[in-house]
């Protein structure tokens, strides 16, 4: 049985314009990226479009990504999420009254994060369905605040190295179990940030909670996940 080539070897080949290597990276990671796109975006077309855009961009940026020795799958996931969130925000802004049906993508294994439902007249990303199965209406609202680092422009130096991502991938089931231990309000707020592309003030409006409480929930949720990740991946001492 042949051993799977490391993704970074494939990336180096992509940087040398090897289409077959890109095809192999696509086979390996497209389900992961598309699952994320389908979770964030309200239509299959939009999810497919962003998926393609991200891989086209990988083709263009592979030389620098390969040279820096950063994780290709981390780049894919982080870039794809940002692109999808930007698209979602644009959709909310440009079509505030259009109800969009969520995609019915065939899903595989994954943590218990619920699926998407939409209501007529509201734009509802999949994250708007809370973990206990009750859907939350996410009304479109104008974007506010300062543009956070467009992931497309996140410096490569901020990306993890492949070995750090391997630690996470090897312990993914355990890490998802840990995330599922978050108290419900914290999980809901975090989901609205991660998959709904909402800012903290928008999350507060969505949840009908005071901004200060939502801020505390988000910070507590992120700290919880970060600490669990350190503990599960055995990087705690190195990061204190």
């Amino acid at each position: 049985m042949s051993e799977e080539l490391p993704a970074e070897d494939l990336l180096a080949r992509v940087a040398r314009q090897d289409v077959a290597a890109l095809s192999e990276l696509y086979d390996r990671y497209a389900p992961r990226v598309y699952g994320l796109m389908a979770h964030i975006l309200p239509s299959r077309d939009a999810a497919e479009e962003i998926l393609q855009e991200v891989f086209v961009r990988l083709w263009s940026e592979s030389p620098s990504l390969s040279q820096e020795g950063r994780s290709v799958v981390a780049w894919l996931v982080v870039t794809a999420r940002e692109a999808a969130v930007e698209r979602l925000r644009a959709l909310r802004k440009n079509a505030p009254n259009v109800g969009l049906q969520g995609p019915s993508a065939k899903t595989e294994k994954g943590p218990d994060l619920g699926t998407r439902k939409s209501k007529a007249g509201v734009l509802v990303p999949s994250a708007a369905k809370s973990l206990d199965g009750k859907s939350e209406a996410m009304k479109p609202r104008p974007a506010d605040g300062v543009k956070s680092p467009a992931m497309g422009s996140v410096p490569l130096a901020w990306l993890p190295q492949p070995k750090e991502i391997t630690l996470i991938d090897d312990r993914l089931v355990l890490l998802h179990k840990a995330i599922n231990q978050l108290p419900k309000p914290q999980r809901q707020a975090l989901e609205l940030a991660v998959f709904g592309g909402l800012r903290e003030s928008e999350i507060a409006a969505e949840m009908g909670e005071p901004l200060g409480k939502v801020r505390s929930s988000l910070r507590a949720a992120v700290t919880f996940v970060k600490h669990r990740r350190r503990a599960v991946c055995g990087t705690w001492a190195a990061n204190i």
Partner: protein
Amino acid sequence: MGCQHLEELYELWLLGALSEQGSLDLRDHLGRGCPHCLARLREATETVYLLGLASKPARPHPRVKSELLRHISRKAAPNR
């Protein structure tokens, strides 16, 4: 200025969830090239990656890959 007060903000900033003021504070601080924050940002990116994987994998239609590779092959062809 120290950066302990930013400790809980890196992930939320990367996620685009911070308010205007929170983003400005962090951006301002990062602009000074703080090495501690750079290390924390790397770690925060790992957490953002992990959170992104909380969605279930899904298989895109095979047409998506065909179109992608056709497009890429056209881009690659002039360089060969």
